[in-house]
């Protein structure tokens, strides 16, 4: 298997790439953890409105340590701040925004994504305490569902697969993947390669992908800011 450790994008670079696709005025939910990074890389001439499913729209950055207000938190239970335009609402309204199709984009992490768009990201299936939160609501109802992920697992196994082996979060829901090696769309039950980092060949990228990578146009070089590497 190809050694991709030295050439792959950092999480910050993957988040930066995802941020470039968010249009001005979009309503966006960022999953807990890695996807939260996307908010840092919004292009300056655009303003997305971020939704936090615990009941906040359009919030500000984390406060300095020691100035947290624990009634003002995001879905990751981290302290946030209000800003002009912030609104608070209860859980039924928050998920009416989700289920009702009012969110333009949800960005989540993944254990596995199948070429059909099936997503597994809530249970490793190995016991332990299962926890799902709002992921199943988000993936089934946001207009677009993007996944940020390493292209392979820590053990080097593909995360883009023919069929998910792990318990599903949602069926045929993912529309685009931003991975550590490539940008891939899901179209008609296929992975369609849009961009790849220039330091990997198409053949080697296919070797670390668990289902065929299709193309329906030019594959663009995926170039991210070096400073984020």
């Amino acid at each position, binding site marked *: 298997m190809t050694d991709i450790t030295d050439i792959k994008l950092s999480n910050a670079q993957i988040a930066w790439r995802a941020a470039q696709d968010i249009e001005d005025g979009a309503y966006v939910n960022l999953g807990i953890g890695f996807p939260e990074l996307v908010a840092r890389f919004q292009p300056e001439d655009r303003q997305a409105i971020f939704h*936090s*499913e*615990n*009941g*906040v729209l359009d919030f500000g950055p984390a406060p300095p340590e020691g100035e*947290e*207000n*624990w*009634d*003002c*938190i995001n879905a990751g*239970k981290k302290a946030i701040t*209000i800003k002009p335009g912030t609104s*608070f*609402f*209860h*859980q*039924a309204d*928050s*998920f009416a925004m*989700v*289920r009702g199709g009012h969110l333009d984009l949800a960005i989540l992490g993944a254990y596995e994504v199948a070429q059909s768009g*099936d997503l597994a990201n809530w*249970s490793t299936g190995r016991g332990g*305490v*299962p*926890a*799902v*939160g*709002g*992921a*199943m*609501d988000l993936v*089934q*109802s946001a207009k677009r569902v993007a996944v940020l992920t390493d292209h392979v697992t820590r053990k080097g196994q593909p995360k883009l697969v023919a069929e998910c082996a792990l*318990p*599903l*979060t*949602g*069926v045929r829901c993912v529309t685009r993947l931003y991975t550590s090696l490539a940008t891939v769309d899901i179209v008609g039950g296929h992975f369609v390669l849009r961009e790849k980092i220039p330091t990997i060949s198409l053949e080697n990228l296919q070797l670390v992908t668990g289902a065929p990578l299709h193309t329906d146009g030019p594959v663009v070089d995926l170039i991210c800011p070096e400073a984020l590497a």
Partner: protein
Amino acid sequence: MDKTIHAPAVAVSQIPDGATLMIGGFGGAGAPIELIHALIDHGAKDLTVINNNAGNGHVGLAALIEQKQVRKLICSFPRSADPVVFTEAYQAGEIELELVPQGTLAERIRAGGAGVPAFYTPTAYGTKLAEGKPQEEFEGRMYIRERWLKADFALIKGELGDPHGNLTYRMASRNFNPLMAMAATTTFAQVSRVVPLGGIDPEHVVTPGIFVSNVIEVADPAQEEELNRAKVVYP
């Protein structure tokens, strides 16, 4: 009409063994710590608890679980910064878990409060959490049927309350609290301040008093995150 009562203990002493209980909050925001701690002092056990989470550290809901008062938990996300109490009880088979997607949990509670016995949702379609649930197609898309959730009691936290039970909430502490207020037979609301009638602008009322049984003033309420930072263990 005056729904104010003076102490959390007076409210929770009405809760019997085996009761089904909704407890407000998302993480520590909106968690009625003083009502939960009074319930621990009261000692009701064999409870079914509905909350988004499963407690954090050794205070609030985690402490209620640690005291072995909870038989079953209905929640969406039983993980936290310090989930050891629930995790150990779950792995020892001492507590039953019904895992519900967060939006479905919210809507089931809302439906319970609104008198709607069931509804269809696309959430969880095709997953393990939909197993055994009726499915139906609407406009070319598949949905699963979910049932309402109701409770004997709700313990919730507001910011201001008046003698009729009208409530406001502080920031994101609103979360499940207004829904749970609707869905329980008896709702106890702890508030940071009880104000006279007219003390809340009618346009600012979030939960109208019809959904609230009693209001208990707890000035300077404890916050779960701060208790955990100080490594508090209750009792």
